């Protein structure tokens, strides 16, 4: 014990996820609650004692031992579980720094694959993955997904029940089952990342943790040949390239900044180069997934010195591809921005006006907000102001609202009549 040891970032969440996974392998998915409980108790014990005695020399090993001892106590007292005594005891605890993934990586992988079973509803997969593998609390998950904690708690309880009833196993599936499950895992990780990346109000720490966790779990999948597929590399590239801009996306007051307004020296070069390496390795094989295309778009932004030297023609081609294999109104919105950058604001405005008829976009603030930006570029601040006014009348998050209010003020400063 010493008062001079520091804790590495994410240590508690990672240890919790690893320990819950290892215990679930041994005790079985029907005892997931016990696994979660003894791990939570171990963390609380650390919280109670470390302030006085200092952080142990091997904090990870300390947490693993205390959690394992807690599990051993329960197993000894329970006649049905007593046969698990040996396997619980066999869970390693004296893990040297840097070897935790080696010791627990396969367990965490099996946990993620179990949580993303296709028999579970999609929102339950997300909640359960975050709760068990990511060690987020119900309240944190609720905050990230802007819903009531009770809703999340209920989703998790139901998902656990389904796992027991359907006898979903804690394992690395094979063949077609693995392929289907892997699709689901990538979908869940993509959703986690986007939820963390999108600009909601408050809980910014939780949101960054979501992005970090999505990337960490995706990296886990690269451990095994069966799960280490090019599509995974494309998703990792996409997430790393996007994450490189996380801290540059807002100014010091928390105000959202457009891509063109961001200080590109604040983009994280380490994440960009890691992303570029995954983008390169994602090209193995002949599949071009939506992740591939989106990663390509993110890469085109990441390598550009500024907005004007960005290869917008390439980005437009990639949006054309994306809209061919996964058409959606939101893709069309983004494509319209690329059109404006390649062919001028008027062409972009025309493309956007055509989207106005789309029912899915009728109440979406981003359509008039983007239109407003293009009218500004076209030099018509009155029309821009009208569009920002329209966008502000639709629902959006507070950072987005403040962003548009700032833009609207810029329009009126340029001579547009006040709204």
């Amino acid at each position: 014990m010493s008062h001079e040891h520091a804790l590495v970032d994410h240590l508690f969440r990672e240890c919790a996820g690893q320990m819950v996974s290892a215990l679930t392998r041994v005790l079985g998915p029907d005892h997931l609650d016990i696994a979660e409980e003894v791990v939570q108790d171990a963390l609380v014990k650390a919280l109670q004692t470390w302030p006085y005695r200092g952080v142990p020399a091997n904090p990870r090993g300390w947490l693993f031992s205390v959690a394992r001892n807690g599990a051993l106590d329960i197993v000894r007292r329970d006649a049905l579980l007593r046969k698990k005594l040996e396997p619980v005891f066999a869970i390693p605890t004296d893990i040297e720094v840097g070897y935790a993934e080696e010791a627990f990586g396969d367990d965490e992988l099996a946990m993620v694959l179990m949580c993303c079973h296709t028999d579970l509803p999609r929102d339950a997969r997300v909640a359960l993955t975050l709760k068990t593998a990511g060690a987020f609390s119900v309240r944190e998950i609720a905050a990230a997904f802007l819903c009531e904690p009770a809703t999340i708690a209920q989703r998790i309880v139901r998902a656990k029940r389904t796992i027991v009833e359907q006898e979903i196993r804690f394992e690395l599936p094979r063949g077609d089952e693995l392929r289907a499950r892997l699709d689901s895992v990538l979908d869940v990780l993509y959703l986690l990342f986007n939820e963390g990346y999108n600009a909601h109000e408050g809980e910014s720490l939780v949101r960054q943790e979501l992005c970090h966790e999505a990337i960490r779990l995706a990296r886990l999948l690269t451990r095994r040949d069966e799960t280490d597929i090019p599509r995974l590399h494309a998703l990792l590239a996409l997430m790393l390239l996007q994450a490189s801009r996380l801290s540059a996306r807002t100014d010091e007051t928390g105000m959202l900044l457009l891509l063109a307004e961001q200080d590109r020296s604040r983009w994280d070069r380490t994440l960009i180069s890691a992303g570029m390496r995954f983008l390169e390795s994602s090209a193995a094989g002949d599949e071009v997934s939506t992740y591939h295309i989106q990663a390509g778009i993110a890469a085109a932004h990441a390598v550009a010195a500024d907005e004007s030297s960005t290869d917008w023609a390439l980005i437009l081609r990639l949006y054309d591809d994306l809209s061919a294999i996964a058409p959606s109104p939101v893709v069309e919105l983004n494509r319209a921005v690329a059109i404006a950058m390649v062919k001028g604001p008027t062409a972009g405005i025309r493309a956007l006006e055509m989207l106005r008829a789309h029912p899915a976009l009728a109440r979406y603030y981003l359509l008039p907000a983007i239109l407003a930006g293009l009218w500004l570029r076209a030099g018509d601040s009155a029309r821009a102001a009208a569009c920002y006014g329209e966008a502000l009348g639709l629902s959006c998050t507070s950072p987005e609202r403040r962003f548009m209010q700032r833009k609207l003020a810029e329009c009126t400063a340029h001579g547009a009549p006040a709204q």
Partner: protein
Amino acid sequence: MPKYLLVARDDGRWQTASGEMSPAQMQEMLQTYGAWGERVAKQGRLKGGEKLRDGQGKVLRGGNSGLSVTDGPFVESKEVIGGFWILEAPGYADVEKLVSDHPHLNFGSLEIREIEDMGRA
């Protein structure tokens, strides 16, 4: 140099807070205590500390009617001793300064007592 006992009392807020925390929040909280401990240890002032086990304890009293043993001290006391540290400093003023921004102040009180040095009598 004189030694001081720093006693941390919890008034219930700590129990409430720690019961509802997520792993990330627990780590964050530990880091605030860790930062204090690290700073004071680096100045050579921190000589140790121990956590006392919650929810137990015995209080013994003698008297005319004989020995009485009660569970406690939590029965009568609103503030329970959570644990303690031993500090070394030239005087009370220095200890006060070291402790004035202690994270525990968010959860209860801190009491400083100088340990009598029998060798100096």
